[in-house]
């Protein structure tokens, strides 16, 4: 028996060691390298020197980086709130007594399976040619020119596309959350004479709280890392007003000769994402316990 167990252990190690090596080589190692590059003035080619914390100091004074953080946070905050409100409403609708339930669920999920890049191109046409016509007909001032060409409104265009795709995903998760609520809970609260509104917020919502956590963490993370939509809708413009952090790191790190500097940016970005996710999870866990 003892020998058998050690055979099992041997197999376990024989499987896990190559897996860990693979993961280390293409995840941990590049991350360590990224951290090391962040302390250099490497351009992406040629020689480089170590510059200590200069990149990090410069990050906080670089207006373009600051602008990209502002845009990304604004975008992620607005997106997360919009998506979660909309998809919760959608989920409640799609989970009630309606006809064609599965067909409707299927249709509303379509935006999520389509790639962000191509969807961005299609919406770009809508923003450039369709919406201005609508704006002209109904005399809506800010729509009369392409919103993507406006420094002030371009981010809303990116937001619409991001939300259009993300709602699909989060709705499905909320629906599976609503399905975990037993039928008796609805019946019991109906008998108590609670109004629909009250029933939802006092009884149903607390029960789907774990799904709210999942959705908040997921959508915040996805919105913070927005890339494809920027690539196809605005390329960060106009006047860098929609330059997301991921896009800036890609653009200036890969082609702009800022390999070292953008590595520092990526390190900070990584810390920000981890901090926000952990913060959300702790806060929401506390909320879940309270309820």
């Amino acid at each position: 028996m003892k020998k058998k167990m050690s055979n099992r252990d041997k197999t376990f190690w024989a499987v896990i060691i190559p897996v860990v090596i693979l993961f280390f080589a293409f995840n941990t190692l590049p991350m360590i390298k990224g951290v090391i590059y962040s302390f250099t003035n490497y351009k992406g080619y040629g020689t480089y020197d170590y510059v200590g914390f200069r990149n990090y100091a410069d990050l906080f004074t670089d207006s373009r980086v600051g602008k990209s953080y502002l845009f990304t946070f604004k975008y992620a905050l607005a997106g997360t709130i919009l998506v979660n409100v909309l998809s919760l409403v959608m989920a409640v609708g799609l989970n009630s007594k309606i006809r064609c339930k599965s067909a409707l669920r299927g249709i509303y999920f379509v935006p999520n399976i389509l790639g962000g890049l191509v969807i961005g191109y299609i919406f770009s046409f809508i923003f450039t040619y369709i919406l201005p016509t609508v704006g002209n007909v109904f005399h809506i001032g800010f729509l009369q020119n392409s919103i993507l060409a406006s420094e002030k409104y371009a981010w809303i265009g990116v937001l619409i596309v991001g939300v259009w795709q993300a709602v699909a995903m989060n709705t499905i998760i909320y629906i599976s959350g609503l399905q975990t609520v037993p039928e008796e809970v609805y019946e019991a609260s109906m008998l108590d004479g609670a109004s629909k509104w009250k029933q939802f917020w006092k009884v149903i919502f607390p029960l789907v709280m774990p799904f709210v956590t999942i959705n908040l963490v997921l959508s915040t993370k996805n919105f913070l890392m927005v890339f494809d939509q920027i690539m196809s809708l605005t390329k960060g413009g106009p006047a860098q007003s929609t330059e997301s952090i991921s896009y800036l790191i890609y653009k200036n790190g890969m082609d702009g000769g800022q390999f070292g500097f953008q590595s520092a940016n990526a390190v900070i970005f990584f810390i920000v994402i981890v901090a926000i996710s952990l913060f959300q999870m702790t806060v929401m866990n506390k909320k879940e316990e309270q309820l």
Partner: protein
Amino acid sequence: MMKEKQKTNWVLTIVLILGTVTVFFPLYMAVIIAFKKPSEMTNDVAGALSFPKQWSFENFRQAMEVTDFWHSLGNSLLITLVTIVLAILIHSIAGYVIGRGMARRKSFRFIYLYIVSGMFVPFSILMMPLVKQTAHMGLGNRAGVILLYLVFYMPMNVLLYSGYLKNIPIALEEAADIDGASTWTTYWKVVFPMMKPMHATVAILTALGTWNDVMTPLVIMSGTGQNTLPLAQLNFQTQFGTNYNLAFASYILALIPILIFYMICQKQILNGVANGAVKG
């Protein structure tokens, strides 16, 4: 009372049906434009939304030629399929070993946390070093992209598999063990088939992620002349110029494969996504 609760909510049904316009409108417009001639694109909404004078596939034929469609499609299929197969084989056994090992050894618990925490690592921080690294190792190509996907999806898939393992009684493995089967055989003969529902979830989540991904092939495969389907749309953007009809034909071509896949496996996809998110 019971009767009333079961009644169909027609108002809501109609509102929800009308709401599908938000999904269909962009797709409808894309299809219409893809079938039109550039001369039919008048400068008003009708130019974009009215039916074309005649339904011709000329734009599609041209788009296939310009973007080397079959080649890009082949690359996308190759990368996605190989990634899925390898993910199911490698991630499932990794998830199994970690899941079972965790119960007995601290070291496996540590490996679990190490790999799963990789979920928080954004691609941005890995991107630049990975481009150097893969180029240096001769992996700046399709094989490299597949390898990277296997690494990127490992945290999520290991989490899913090791979580699912809790549903599979260890007694089965012990019985096989007493019968003299090796751990390796027991895994492939007994445990692997039992994880079938999770294989479907993993396949679907991995497929959706890799099929639509732009960033990884963009930075890793640039310079090889190879395109994936989304990457081709990006790379040929300048060639489309202002010929929106050609561009939209190309977009539609890029969307069709995944739409067909979705129509066939809709139920599994919805289940898979829900399962993945809830367990993850």
